[in-house]
């Protein structure tokens, strides 16, 4: 089942199945790739928002933690990944 990253459950690893690169600005797309967010990569949504908003979203990508907004996360399609240990 495919789902977009902005609605993925927190704490569960997911695999990126597709990124709608055309719907991201070139700068946004490049920064995602620089963070290592690409098709086939496994990420774990960790934290979402603060008192006043459900935005932004903090993700674990490998050994790195990055923050993106829901608007960008909505362009990233993910599928359930086999949970790593």
């Amino acid at each position, binding site marked *: 089942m495919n789902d977009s990253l902005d609605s993925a459950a927190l704490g569960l690893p997911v695999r990126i199945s597709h990124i709608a690169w055309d719907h991201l*600005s070139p*700068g*946004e797309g*490049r*920064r*995602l*790739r*620089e*963070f*290592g967010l*690409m098709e086939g990569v496994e990420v774990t949504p*960790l*934290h*979402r*928002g*603060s*008192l*006043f*908003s*459900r*935005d*932004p979203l*903090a993700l674990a*990508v*490998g*050994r*790195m*933690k*990055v*923050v*993106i*907004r829901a*608007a*960008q996360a909505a362009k990233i399609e993910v599928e359930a990944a086999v949970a*790593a*240990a």
Partner: protein
Amino acid sequence: MTAAMPTIALVGNPNAGKSSLFNALTGARQKIANYPGVTVERKAGHASFADGRPLSLIDLPGSYSLTPSSPDEQVTRDVILGKQAGEALPDALIVVVDAANLDNHLCFALELIALGRPTVVALNMLDLATRDGLTLDVEALSRELGVPVVPTVAVRRRGLVDLLSAVDGALLSHGESGAERGGVAAQEGDIHRRARVIARAATVAERPVRRWTQRVDAIALHPVAGFLILLALMFIMFQAVYAWSEAPIGWIEGAIATMQEMVIGAMPDSFLRGLIVEGILGGVGSVIVFLPQILILFLFILLLEASGYMTRAAFLMDGIMARVGLSGRGFIPLLSSFACAVPGIMATRAIPDAKDRLTTILIAPLMTCSARLPVYTLIIGAFIPNRNVGNSPVGLQGLVLFGLYVSGIVGALVVALVLRRTLAKGSSASFMMEMPRYQWPRLRDVLISLWQRAWIFLRRAGTIIFVTTIALWLLLSYPKLPDGSSESQVDYSVAGRIASGLEVVVRPIGFNHDIALALIPAMAAREVAVSAMATANAIDAGDDEEALAQTLGERLQGRWSLATALAFLAWFVFAPQCISTIAITRRETNGWKWPLFMVGYLFALAYAAAGITYWTAVAFGLG
């Protein structure tokens, strides 16, 4: 091919520990300036090889690739490619990578190695990687990359000698062969794939550990708890600025008074003595007393930044910032604007979106910078009673000060909201940033930065404030009041007459002659308002010993109404009283349009705020 003193550039991803490595290599032998034409900081310093030969090191802004997406990254690329004006092509590169984040950091490293320059990779923060359960094969990594790899732990000064000798070797062998490496595919996707393959080859063992940072973040980034922690930290910070500075301020005041007495004792009453005692010691001294408060504020900001918490704060604030069309990225420049808007505005260079950045620059002066503290402290001390609110432990003076800070913040948010819907209209800002790991701030790195900030403040006090104080003292002292005149020397002087002209404009909002007199020199720097009043006061007191013994605050109490004092405070929440801020805005926005707009809207806000405060206070019978 290498000059007598080779120049080595330190380059790497953000959060690779580059600045710690730079500090460890150069120590106190470093200088901060700006690159000509742009305001990106140029950090350079000296170090030496094992045999004592000197080398020059430059620390470049952290970057993810050679394709820039902010002015900071633009400079990094231009320096590396030898295109930056005023900077020669570096003789060699030290690429700093975070040992625990090879997958990502090797991408930039591969891009840099492909340039074919003499390159050494510093495999930094190896201790943290080991702590996280990672075992790396340094030789395999070096083999794959085709350049020397040296493990370093910058904060513990480990591997520094090896690193420099590897650089020396790279310079030598490059000089002999003139070899151009190449052949590394420059395609972005390929680089990512290669980086991952190499990272995997170099990783001997990876033990997944449940990192404690996860648990800390579960609280620090919690939607409710995290926000309360952030508020508490801010509260402690501003509280400490007052509580901790009391004693050191007393020492500085004591030292200045002693110096004044020494000069009075050693010199006959003369022009020069007046200049030294009233102008220089009185004027500059009244500003230097605030050094402790400024250092405490900067200390907190530096600690928050070095520990990795600042990005968490940006995460928590992003929701609020988004409401007014900004991003959490703007939180860091705005928070550092509480110390001083100049570095704050310079820090906006990390904001990629142009409209987001412009708006952040334009509201930065509304954050209550430390230069307002002298003014606030003086007026609050003189006019607000030192008692608690009701039976609570909250002090009234502190509450007023808190209110002034809040007014600035609320004003900034409103202005941002309006700007993002009118002049700086654009798509909603994006917010993408890497969250560094938590780290213990290193005393040495914090002290170096703190010293640099202190030096900037003292230089400001020693130049702008010194010159304006002396100029004002001269304008206040001449022409001399004729004997037997009933007028005061201040009113009779050139400055007094100029102030009388300005007074016409500011009288409707409750300002008096004292204030009109202080406003003009305070354009140079806000804190000059205090030294200006101190100087005018000292001249006015003349030989009247009773008047001289009074503090400036006591004198003002007798001359100002409470309504006037409150209006004066409201004015300083908004007024753009700072030449440096206007100058930096001009440089950062590349023209006069935005700084002029900024000055205009801030003066309008200040005039309105002071007026409303005054009229309201008078209506309540405080006039």
